[in-house]
């Protein structure tokens, strides 16, 4: 799962700490998501999209080659 969190955050001049506080997660989670290492839950994904006032598709992009057919991040 790829995402544009870093770009959207930069456009709004928002720090990782601020975004983390707004969505109710730790800064480490934001860092992991920006590095495409952590795939967030649907709830968190919607919350992030809501903070940026965009659709969820504008933030996250599903890629079959990366995520696998089951979507398992094992």
């Amino acid at each position, binding site marked *: 799962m790829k995402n544009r969190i870093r770009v959207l955050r930069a456009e709004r001049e928002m720090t990782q700490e601020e975004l983390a*506080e707004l969505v*109710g*997660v*730790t800064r*480490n989670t934001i860092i992991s998501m920006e590095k495409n290492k952590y795939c967030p839950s649907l709830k968190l994904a919607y919350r992030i999209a809501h903070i940026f006032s965009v659709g969820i598709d504008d933030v996250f992009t599903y890629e079959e080659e990366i995520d696998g057919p089951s979507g398992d991040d094992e």
Partner: protein
Amino acid sequence: MKRLTYLTCSLVVASMVAAMVGWSMAAGNFLVPVIAIPLGVIVVLACRAHVDIVIADEREKRIRSKAALRTLEVVIIGGAIAAVILYSFVTSIPLTPIITGKIFLNADGTQSMTIAEYKSGSVPGPETLVRSTTIQDLNAMNETEAVAYCTYVREGFSGNENRGLAGMTIACGLFAMLAIFGAFYLYYERTY
């Protein structure tokens, strides 16, 4: 409250509760743990409520869940192997020590017996001898010799018996852990 302050506070409370419980057990006062443990939990929970940053989010919970599952897998597999190896000391003949008893006829007509313990899996001989004792007169065995005779065989096997006991304890622990895991699995399967 910062995260570090919360962790320090939790550590101090846990240490105090452990010290109080330890002291009360030594003193034979069983009322102190009943009060100290819930009080400690309340203090830690109150501190947790005042932490101004997110302590555990969904990523943290997922990491903990995976780490717990991996730990369980490693402990179950490693523990099962350890339990089988340890218990095999009790049932395996080559692993048990060799204990022999030889009766000799003395010059005065009395009989003496020498009990000897040799290393497990070895051929009995002077170089494999662990220890030995001699009862001078079998028919006039005194109390000390009788006790030595009784305890000799028991002590010879005690190492293997202890290993077997450790193996059984590990096996029971693993069984209990699996049972608890199964119970939680069924609970969460119904919840989600």
